[in-house]
């Protein structure tokens, strides 16, 4: 409650006290521009992080719960092996559902490569069985061993071979997004600290006058801190709006776009950028306060 009232008092400010710091100067423009640029980049880093997170989840969930059994056998043995595989799967713990793909489904899978007139009944095309796992999942090694014994032409592909590197890559991308946000925040803090220090040095006369007439260091620091915090808040708000607008205007890749389709923000995720301006203001507050107190201490 105390912190809240302090924050409100800080934001509401004192119109007279605010005027003691000269309103112009390159440090003012630098702070606003740096905050806007950092916020703009932060929106994209956030979007990248959230998108790769979604991608990792989607790939992980979609592929982890399904597997395929491919049966390669002479045509006269195909039905017998398919029956054997179906019976094995029916008694395998962890298998929720198993379904041989129909002729039309297999044709649809092969059509992009071989065209629409593929004579499936005359070609030795392997039969495919789609396996859906339940939450517990099945023992892949055990299932492979049973298939080898009872249906030698059946091979289990649980997608792990290519799913894992994809999920790993997406997870790393998500981590990189977070690292980018941390770096952007740190950089924003550094830039604002430098700007505030430069402003304090440039306003040595102001500090001397204020001290001469009995201003406490906390009063002087507060005047500078409030000015720079509000500048960072304003700059980052503009940067966030522009960043969000740029994301919103990204071309839609549709269902063919794969990865690109998920690059923007979705649903409630659009609320995340709203945190950027207050967070930037907090960074500016801490950075400027530290710079101001250090500078004033040195100027005793």
């Amino acid at each position, binding site marked *: 409650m105390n912190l809240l009232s302090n924050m409100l008092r800080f934001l509401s400010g004192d119109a007279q*006290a605010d005027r003691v710091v000269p*309103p112009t100067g390159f440090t003012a423009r630098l702070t606003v521009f740096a905050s806007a640029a950092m916020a703009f980049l932060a929106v994209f880093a956030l979007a990248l992080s959230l998108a790769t997170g979604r991608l990792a989840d989607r790939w992980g969930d979609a592929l982890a719960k399904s597997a395929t059994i491919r049966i390669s056998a002479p045509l006269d043995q195909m039905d017998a092996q398919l029956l054997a595989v179906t019976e094995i799967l029916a008694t395998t713990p962890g298998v929720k559902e198993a379904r041989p793909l129909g002729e039309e489904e297999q044709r649809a899978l092969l059509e992009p490569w071989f065209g629409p007139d593929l004579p499936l009944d005359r070609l030795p095309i392997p039969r495919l069985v789609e396996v859906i796992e339940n939450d517990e999942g099945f023992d892949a090694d055990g299932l492979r061993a049973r298939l080898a014994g009872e249906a030698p032409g059946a091979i289990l592909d649980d997608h792990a071979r290519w799913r894992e590197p994809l999920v790993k890559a997406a997870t790393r991308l998500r981590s990189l997004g977070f690292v980018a946000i941390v770096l952007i925040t740190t950089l924003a803090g550094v830039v604002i600290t430098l700007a505030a220090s430069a402003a304090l040095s440039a306003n040595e006369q102001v500090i001397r006058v204020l001290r001469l*007439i009995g201003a406490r260091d906390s009063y002087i620091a507060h005047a500078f801190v409030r000015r720079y915090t509000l500048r960072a808040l304003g700059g980052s708000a503009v940067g966030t709006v522009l960043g969000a607008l740029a994301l919103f205007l990204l071309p839609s890749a549709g269902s063919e776009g794969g990865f690109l389709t998920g690059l923007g923000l979705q649903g409630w995720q659009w609320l995340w950028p709203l945190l950027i301006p207050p967070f930037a203001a907090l960074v500016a507050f801490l950075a400027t306060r530290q710079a101001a107190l250090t500078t004033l201490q040195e100027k005793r």
Partner: protein
Amino acid sequence: MIELEQVAYGYGTGTLLSDVTLSLAQGSFHFLTGPSGAGKTTLMKLCYGELVAEQGSVALFGQNVRDMQRDDVAEVRRRIGVVHQDCQFLDHLSLAENIMLPLTVSGRALHDPSELQELLAWVGLQQQANAKPPELSGGERQRAALARAVIMSPDVILADEPTGNVDWEMSVRLLQLLVELNRMGKTVMIATHDMNLIRSAKSQVQARVLRISNHQVALAGANL
């Protein structure tokens, strides 16, 4: 109110002030004189806590400056009005805002807004209230500095060469204002090398003249 006891101060390896003992009692009026570079400004700065004595002690309203924290110094400055030769204003604020600044930084306000008008009238700057400091003449800036120094109704006024940049007529005017303050019970010390100014004060006020010579402060003459 302000007590200096065997104070020494120097810059680098050189000694500027040595074994200075001085007492500014309530309601007293002092002139501090001496050649340029003798240490008048340094002694003034010691008297309002901007500098800390290397040796000896400086007590402001009973507090030893050496033991003060920065906030204590700020608090003491509110009881000491300082007028500098170079004035020192915030150039982006109007004259009225500059004069009000001591009240602003201490979170106070005038009981009645007309008090500011009275103060401006006292120093003859009613017409310049909204002007920015760079737009004012030297004499106007000095009078504005004096108004700023007294707006908190301080106990002590320290004026460092207040007439250094103004003509004789304005010097006399400023002296009159400082004498008026002294008659109101304020302690006043003026650092100046202008002996004519000191002589002209003879008929107006009981003042003690202190002279800095050979790093030390001595009484140059009493009861002008």
